């Protein structure tokens, strides 16, 4: 499903973000990406949805080399790879419904399809009663649920999560984790970058550890430290 082959990424100013990282993630896996700040976790995720391209090596998703895709094919890639972020990145002027619907509309779905799919997604994330609320009227946890609904509404085979619980308290984080586990159970591969050792230790999933851009550990049922 996902493969990195000796990937190196250097930002302008000679900042080494990733150095010769190789790994494979199979379909349906749930993988934690851990490491201190600046270890390359975000860069790892950004390479998977072509927000960045590798300077050396190759990134493969579903048999296609991401870095070699023409720019016009990037939107299609992004519909295969859902994303959630620490700061949610919701559109502030749109309601919960409109935020989720937007991700469907950009794929050219009919309004009829949008009308049936968005409510079932909001049901899944437990926000049926907040359909017409605006992001600023929601708690952090609720906003992250909207963001998850938006990322998952296209039923992408891959979901990337960059510190999704970074701004949330413990209980709320657990709720978000249950939701991600549920999505993973439905067949979506989840790659989640996190600092939260409780979550990692509780889940006992595969853990990839990055340190100063190098992949230093890959444990099948790993712990944070």
């Amino acid at each position: 499903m996902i493969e990195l082959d000796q990937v190196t990424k250097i930002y302008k100013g000679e900042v080494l973000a990733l150095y010769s990282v190789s790994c494979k993630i199979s379909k349906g896996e749930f993988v934690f990406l851990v490491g201190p700040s600046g270890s390359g976790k975000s860069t790892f995720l950004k390479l998977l949805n072509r927000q960045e391209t590798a300077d050396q090596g190759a990134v493969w998703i579903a048999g296609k080399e991401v870095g070699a895709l023409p720019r016009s094919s990037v939107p299609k890639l992004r519909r295969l790879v859902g994303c959630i972020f620490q700061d949610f990145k919701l559109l502030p002027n749109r309601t919960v419904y409109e935020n989720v619907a937007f991700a469907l509309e950009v794929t050219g779905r009919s309004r009829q399809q949008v009308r049936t799919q968005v409510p079932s997604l909001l049901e899944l994330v437990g926000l049926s009663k907040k359909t017409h609320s605006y992001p600023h009227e929601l708690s952090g946890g609720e906003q992250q649920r909207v963001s998850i609904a938006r990322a998952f509404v296209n039923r992408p085979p891959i979901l990337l999560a960059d510190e999704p619980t970074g701004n949330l308290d413990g209980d709320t984080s657990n709720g978000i984790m249950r939701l991600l586990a549920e999505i993973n159970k439905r067949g979506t591969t989840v790659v989640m970058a996190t600092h939260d050792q409780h979550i990692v230790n509780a889940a006992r999933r595969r853990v990839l550890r990055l340190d100063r851009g190098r992949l230093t550990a890959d444990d099948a049922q790993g712990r944070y430290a």
Partner: protein
Amino acid sequence: MAISLGYVFRETRGNLRWNVTLFAATIVAVWVSLTLFGSSLLIREGVEQATGRWQGGIEFIVFMNADASEAQHAAIRGALDENPEIDGYDYVDQQGAFNEFITEFADRPELIENVTPEILPPSYRVKPSVGDADVIEALAAQFDARPGVRQVTLPVEVIRTLQQNSQKVSVFVLIIAIVVLLAALMLIANTIRTAIFARRQDIEVMKLVGASNWYVRLPFMVEGTIQGLIGGALAIPMLFLMNNLMAGFVQDDYLELLRSLVVDSAVVWNTSLLVTGIGAAVGVVGSLFAVGRFLDV
């Protein structure tokens, strides 16, 4: 992938609703800039029209010998009538020339005392249909050699100076118009860019959920077109107002110079349509470039 009209309409409406201030600012920028640009064009049009009028008023004078025969006069009149480059002429006989002389030298009675109508040459004041100095010079030369003609005088230098000056003024005003247009373009592009900068995060999110570039661009371009059209349309009454103000000066007989700068309302309409078209084009292109900077996500 087809982009539905409904989507473009809803997005554009949303953009307008969420950014009322910047939307209005862009319209005002377009409005003011295009009014200035349109005014420069109208002034240029007025200058050219005025020059044409002055040039049309230029005449050359065929002085006859005081003793020229009636046959010689008839030949000259025939030649003047036949020539298509001549609009018309006035004949000033010896008494008429004497009257002019008296008027001209009213303050010098000693000159008038020594002159009688008989010694003054009768003349034809010829109005050419063209304003070009070279053509008029050639035209005058045709009469110089005819029997009975004493002298042909023509204000070639005056015409040349007038032509050169009006060209200079016309070019000068055109340069001002172009500079104003460039300033307008930059002002409008900057305002649009500010409006889009305010929404760069929206654009980033749209791109991250898989929107194509055209999907993001199109509503902004429609928005830019609407702003350009409204701004351009608002400039139309300003242009008419300006032209009417000058017409007001004419009625007051206040400033002679401005009289010739008033142009026909058809000219104002043409300029208005041009200005509105430029407004729409600037809106589209400005949005296109402004969005482009933020699409690279």
